Structure formats: structure tokens, C-alpha cells
């Protein structure tokens, strides 16, 4: 009947939205096992994060606020997370799958001598503990049911597989934990973060995504689909081919090894539909494919397929949607 710790990322003083999937998953597991749910947030200058984290319905919030955590490194955050968790009788440590959690939780697993499962789709509980997990393998062509031995289990959860925990009025109890971190000894330093600035929604949060692939033939092709995205208030995504070619920034890549998304509407333009791309978007509610090759595999999974040249079809689509909106 151990407790569930949910490690949350934060940005601009608030919890990152996709992290709320793990919060929901964690609260549900704690209900199933009789343990307590607890958000862990770490950083430097954390007053508003503390406020944000305490309103998602967990039993507790653990807060580590230390100048040594000002610039993120997995090395320092591992130590902080371990210090915060070790007195908590945790049986499960969760976080939503992200660049942050993917490199942090395996280090933490070693500190806790715990087994880890990545990017889980579901968690079952039995006998007061998390007993089973399901997850995708081989680019989503198989789903595996796995068990994990040990007193503590570490898991990242796929953001699209769990609802977000809603914000609540009542505030959770906050416990501050102090840590001692010798940053010199870590031999690791964050030098710079270059954010890809965009006024469009993030892929992880978007209700509609317009994605482009090799068929767009270059950055100018993306300008055409961006007009459609802006009309729909959509995020822009890309296939690996388009990112590798340098037409769009790397963090727009949708697929097995990029971002995994499941919006209400996914419009794939000039994307052939390689298994690695499909693995990242096949759980979208409605899929539209626009491709001039009638045999492109993307049509096998699209709800609506249009065989057409995007350079003509997408501007037409923009005009037609304007008429009906």
C-alpha cells in the first residue's frame, strides 16, 4: 500500500499540461491501492509552481526549491528527486513521457534500485500495488502486458493514453524538502536553451494537427499548410523526412521516435504513411490524408482520403472551410 509519486515538469510558473496525464494516472492508482498520491516538483524560485501544483487533487505536493536546480540537468534533478522520494514509502513513481522524464527516470530507477517501464498505455492494480502495465512495442505493431518486480516501480506514461487531471479549488498539503547538491561534482552544466518559438499550439496539447511530409517538397510547402493550420487553430507537425531535410524544427516530428499524438483531427499532407509515422498518430480520432499517390499507405488508415496535389488542394481547402465556419 505504498504511495504514488508523480514527477511534474513546469514552465513559466505552472505545471506543463501534458504532465497532468501522469497526475490523473497516479491519482487513480493511489485510489486502487489505498496509498497517497503526491506530486513532486523541483526547481529554483518555485512560489508560483507550488501554487499551481497544489490544485490538481493529489493528497500531497513535495517541493524541492534550491538554487542548485536553476539550470536543469538530469544529474542534479536525479539527486533532488531521490532525496525527496526516499522518505515517502513510494511504491510507484510516474511521469508523463517527455524529453525530461525519458532521461531523468532511468537514473532515478538506479538510485532506487527499481525496475522501469517506459511510455505505458494502462496500469492495473491488485493487492494494494500496481501490478500490470501495457505498452506498445515494434512501432505500435504489438502491445505487451508486462509485470515489474520490486518494492518500487518506475514508469513513464503516454500522455495521450490518460486524461488530464482537472484543476480543483482545494489545495493539497505542501511539504518542502531540502537537498544538498554539489553541482561541481556532477560534471554537467546546462549552457543554453534555444526554444523553438511559435504562436501555434504545442503538438501535445492540440485538438487539431496539420502535418506535412516529404511530398511538400520544401519549407515553402509548409507555408501552405501553415495557412490551413492557422485557420483551424491547429498545431503543425511533420514526418521524419521533412525534419531530416531541415524544413521544420526537430520538435515537430510526429512518430515512433518523435512525438506521439492523438488529436481530434489529424490532417496528413504529403505524408506517405511509413509505419514509424503511423505509430505516432494512429490513435487520432479522425484522420484525413491528402496525397497525390493513390497507393500511399496513409490511405489505409485515413478516414477520409483525397488523392490530389497539395499545392492546389490545400488552398482550396482553406477557402472551403472559410465558407462553412
Amino acid at each position, binding site marked *: 500500500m505504498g504511495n504514488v509519486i508523480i514527477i511534474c515538469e513546469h514552465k513559466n510558473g505552472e505545471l506543463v499540461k501534458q504532465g497532468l496525464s501522469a497526475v490523473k494516472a497516479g491519482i487513480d492508482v493511489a485510489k486502487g491501492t489505498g496509498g497517497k498520491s503526491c506530486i513532486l516538483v523541483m526547481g529554483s524560485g518555485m512560489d508560483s509552481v507550488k501554487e499551481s501544483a497544489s490544485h490538481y487533487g493529489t493528497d500531497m505536493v513535495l517541493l524541492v526549491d534550491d538554487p542548485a536546480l536553476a539550470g536543469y540537468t*538530469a*544529474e542534479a534533478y*536525479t539527486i533532488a528527486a531521490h532525496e525527496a522520494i526516499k522518505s515517502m514509502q513510494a511504491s510507484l513513481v510516474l511521469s508523463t513521457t517527455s524529453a*525530461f522524464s*525519458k*532521461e531523468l*527516470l*532511468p*537514473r*532515478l*530507477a*538506479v538510485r532506487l534500485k527499481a*525496475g*522501469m517501464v*517506459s511510455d505505458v498505455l494502462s496500469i492495473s492494480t491488485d493487492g494494494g500495488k500496481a501490478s500490470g502495465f501495457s505498452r*506498445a*512495442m515494434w*512501432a505500435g505493431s*504489438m*502491445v*505487451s*502486458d*508486462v*509485470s*515489474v*518486480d520490486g518494492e518500487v516501480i518506475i514508469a513513464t506514461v503516454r500522455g495521450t493514453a490518460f486524461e488530464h487531471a482537472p484543476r480543483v479549488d482545494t489545495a493539497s498539503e505542501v511539504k518542502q524538502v531540502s537537498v544538498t547538491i554539489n553541482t561541481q561534482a556532477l*560534471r*554537467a*552544466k*546546462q*549552457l*543554453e536553451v*534555444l*526554444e*523553438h518559438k511559435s504562436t501555434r499550439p504545442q503538438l*501535445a496539447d492540440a485538438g487539431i494537427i496539420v502535418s506535412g511530409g516529404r511530398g511538400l517538397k520544401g519549407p515553402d510547402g509548409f507555408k501552405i499548410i501553415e495557412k490551413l493550420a492557422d485557420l483551424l487553430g491547429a498545431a503543425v507537425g511533420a514526418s*521524419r523526412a521533412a525534419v*531530416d531535410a531541415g524544413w521544420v*524544427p*526537430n*520538435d515537430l*516530428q510526429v512518430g*515512433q*521516435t518523435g512525438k506521439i499524438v492523438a488529436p481530434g*483531427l489529424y490532417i496528413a499532407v504529403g505524408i506517405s504513411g511509413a509505419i514509424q509515422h503511423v505509430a505516432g498518430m*494512429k490513435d487520432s480520432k*479522425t484522420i*484525413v490524408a491528402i496525397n497525390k499517390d493513390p497507393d500511399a499507405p496513409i*490511405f489505409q*488508415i*485515413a*478516414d*477520409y*482520403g*483525397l*488523392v490530389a496535389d497539395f499545392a492546389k*488542394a490545400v488552398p482550396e481547402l482553406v477557402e*472551403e472551410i472559410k465558407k*462553412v*465556419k
Partner: protein
Amino acid sequence: MKILVTIKRVSDPEAKLKIRPDGTGIQTEGVKFVVNPFDEIAVEEALRIKEKHTGEVVVVSIGDKVVTEQIRAALAMGVDRGIFVNYTGSYDSYDVAGILAKVVEQEQPDIIILGKQAVDDDMGQAGFMLAEMLGYPQAAFASKVEISDDKKTAKVTREIDGGLETKEVGLPCIITADLRLNTPRYASLPNIMKAKQKPVKEVTVDALGAVVKPHVTIKKLTEPPKRKGGVKVESVQDLVGKLKNEAKVL
């Protein structure tokens, strides 16, 4: 400089896979196996670092005898020698990191490069577990690596959510390779011939002193329900009509 690269034998990402009758793995008969694509990028990066700073590149792979095919493939790219850890039991990422930690103790490399994930199980844990076991810093999801002139630090550009980060790590360190780090070279015919003569040392888990005790066990594999294709629409007007009236997403 000595650079250690880990490589995993994985089923060809394009291969159609079938579940084994016992339900806990895939049928391997008739399936083509390759070096995990991210590990090929790791090998390429190691070779480039060696070409610039001189030194030695060593690859290690764990599994049964067949993984020596993938070791030879790396040797044919230009890697100097291989280590084959002969182990046929089941293991998880934690165990892999534990085995690799023992190899690192013996080899004492300056840099260890791994692929950011294996495309078969997509766990993506072993590199970071290894870093923590060794007490080394890590540069995850690297898209650019620069080694300092004094060979004491590496400046690494990393692909993170929403952009790029640059991180400085002291050597020895762990780097995991992302897609944009480089484009791996093809092995030339002379290098394929030369690779046959290069040394591959076989070791056992016991001889390394590693303990394998998996935490994570696959109980059952299933094929998820296939998404059914829908209809082809004739025109943009037709599409908009269906999106508005049928799917109700506009």
C-alpha cells in the same frame, strides 16, 4: 581517446512481425535483423570523433552468437574491435546497463555512445541507467557533439521538447544519439573484407561479474486492433462536407 559504442540487434523496422505461439515474443524465422538504426548513428559519431581526435572505437553487443553479425557490420563501418557478451537468458534495461557497466570498468573508455532508444522495445533506458551506475554525466538525444581541444569536456546540442539545449559534460560521459546527429556511412567493400580480420572478444556475463535479474517481464504480446481505412473523397468540397456533417470536426 577511447570510445565505446553499444549496438543492439533488432528486427528490420520494415519487417512484418508475428507473435510466437507462447505469446511472449515474436517469431524470428525469416525475419531480417539489422543494427538498431540509432546505434548506427552512434557508431558513425564515434568514428567521426576518432577521425578528428585520434584514438580507438570499440563496439559491444549482448545476446547469442547471432549478434556477432551486427558487430561485424559495425567493424565494416570502421570500428576497430568488438566485444561480444554471450548471454541467451532474458534481461531488461537495468540488466543491460549492469552488464555494460562491467564492460566499462574493464575498458575505461572516455566516451560511451548509445542510440537514444532501440526501435524494437522502445524502452530508451539503458544509457541513462548506465550513466547513473557509473556516476557519469549524460548528454541525452544528441544532435551535435563537440569535444574540447583538451579532451576534457564535450559540448552537446540536445533535442528537447520545444527546441534545443546545449549542455556541457565532463569526460568520461554517456552520450545518446538522436536522428539528426549524422548520417551513417555505408561500409565499403575493402572495409567489409578488413572487418573479417578484426578482433572480436567473446565474454560471458559471469566472467564480467555482472548479475542479471530482470525486474521487467513481458507476460503477453497482442496485436492491437488495426485501424480501418475509410473512404476516398472526390473533391475538396466533398471532404469539407464530410468533416462538417459526418465527422463533425469543423
